[in-house]
């Protein structure tokens, strides 16, 4: 697979500095503190993987960045623009720079595969129908599903659906791509195809990626940085060689040996 992404996603942060920045972000559900005064930032073009036991707050970070939930405290900035706190109108603008792929795909079952990819570019970005379809067909070609244009998502396998969902997110040309356990709902034999596609995208584009995953080999391959979460805090962070090879924290070592 070759990817023509010369015009796609050359992130140029409008104010310099990191593309994604969280400052003192807290999120609670009732008495349960999911994120506890979290600080971290991601530079443009970097691939960051979030690992850690379930319930440690990884997915909540992605959901905050996608504005699917709101922080109780703290500020979140994307590409130099406030996401939280900000008016809903501002947020809508910033949101266009962010794409997300979900664990359960969440394709629109009432639309063809092609419409799934053209709906938002046409109605949100104002592309012409022809332009959007051209872009959609290129992306479907990239994910190896060019022949499925006219099918309904329900007729595809889980792995195929997830590849369509990845293409759908990319069709918006986001600067940041959020991947939320994208292979967790797949049958084991379908996982490799999706991960290979993501490896390919990570290698051949400049898109910034935040990735929650339990696939440690995949995390090692694509990550510039790995963040180990525990109880709503970052326990430790570093390049994959360090986190997977020689972590400082005993807790990290335990977690990694448990999932590998």
């Amino acid at each position, binding site marked *: 697979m070759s990817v023509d992404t010369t015009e796609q996603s050359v992130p140029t942060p409008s104010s310099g500095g990191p593309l994604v920045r969280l400052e003192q972000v807290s999120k609670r559900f009732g008495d349960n503190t999911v994120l506890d005064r979290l600080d971290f930032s991601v530079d443009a073009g970097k691939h960051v993987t979030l690992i850690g036991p379930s319930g440690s707050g990884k997915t909540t970070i992605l959901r905050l960045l*996608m504005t699917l939930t709101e922080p109780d405290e703290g500020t979140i900035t994307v590409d130099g623009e406030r996401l939280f706190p900000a008016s809903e109108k501002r947020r809508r603008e910033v949101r266009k720079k*962010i794409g997300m792929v979900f664990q359960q795909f969440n394709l*629109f079952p009432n639309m063809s595969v092609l419409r799934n990819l053209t*709906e938002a570019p046409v109605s949100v970005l104002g592309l012409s129908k022809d332009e959007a379809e051209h872009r959609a067909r290129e992306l479907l070609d990239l994910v190896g599903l060019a022949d499925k244009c006219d099918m309904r998502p329900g007729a595809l396998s889980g792995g195929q659906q997830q590849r369509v969902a990845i293409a759908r997110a990319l069709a918006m040309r986001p600067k940041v791509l959020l991947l939320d356990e994208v292979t967790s709902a797949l049958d084991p034999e379908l996982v490799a195809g999706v991960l290979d596609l993501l490896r390919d995208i990570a290698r051949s584009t400049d898109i910034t990626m935040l990735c929650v995953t339990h696939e440690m080999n995949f995390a090692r391959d694509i990550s510039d940085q790995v963040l180990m979460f525990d109880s709503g805090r970052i326990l430790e962070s570093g390049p994959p060689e360090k986190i997977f090879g020689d972590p400082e924290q005993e807790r990290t070592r335990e977690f990694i040996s448990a999932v590998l």
Partner: protein
Amino acid sequence: MNWDWNAVSDFMPHFWDGLLVTLEALALGSLISFALGLVWALLMRVPTRWVRWPVGAVTEFVRNTPLLVQLFFLFYVLPEWGVTMSALTTGVVAIGVHYSTYTMQVYRAGIEAVPVGQWEAATALSLSVRRTWTAVILPQAVRRVVPALGNYVIAMLKDTPLLMVITVLEMLGQARLYSQQTFRFTEPLTVIGVAFILVSVLASLLLRTLERRLVR
């Protein structure tokens, strides 16, 4: 009891007139209830309670008062306020509005049955509120509720004889008129009874076809 085929053929011209009126009331009443019910269901999701409250109160009131009373009210009271409609129009409006308070609950259930992931995907793609509803949520919600809406079409059909009390000559009205003039009851009532069954069976078949096309 004696059965007179001559009475049947005698009644048939009146029957066709009545059938036409019944079908007209049913079709228009259904359209009004489908459209208005959707409007109510959407208004009940508006964030401000200054919209939800009055809509909730009015629809609750309409749903919990008898259609017969509403028919009398529209037919005899509205003209006093200067609103005059023909008897059939009054009947169609009454049936449509009355049943819209039921279909709104069908739509509500259909909307709530759309998985939350669909809303999240719409947000992730930055779809506008309008686009989220028209392109993603409603097509999926409506598809789910066609069978339930179909049940209300049958219920409406069975309520059309009520229109007789406001002088609309639908099937029962025609039968009664014929009986009063000829003192024959068996034939006209039997004919319209059979007709009600046939219409409801046909309506069910029609809806099932629609359902199958939508569920594809």
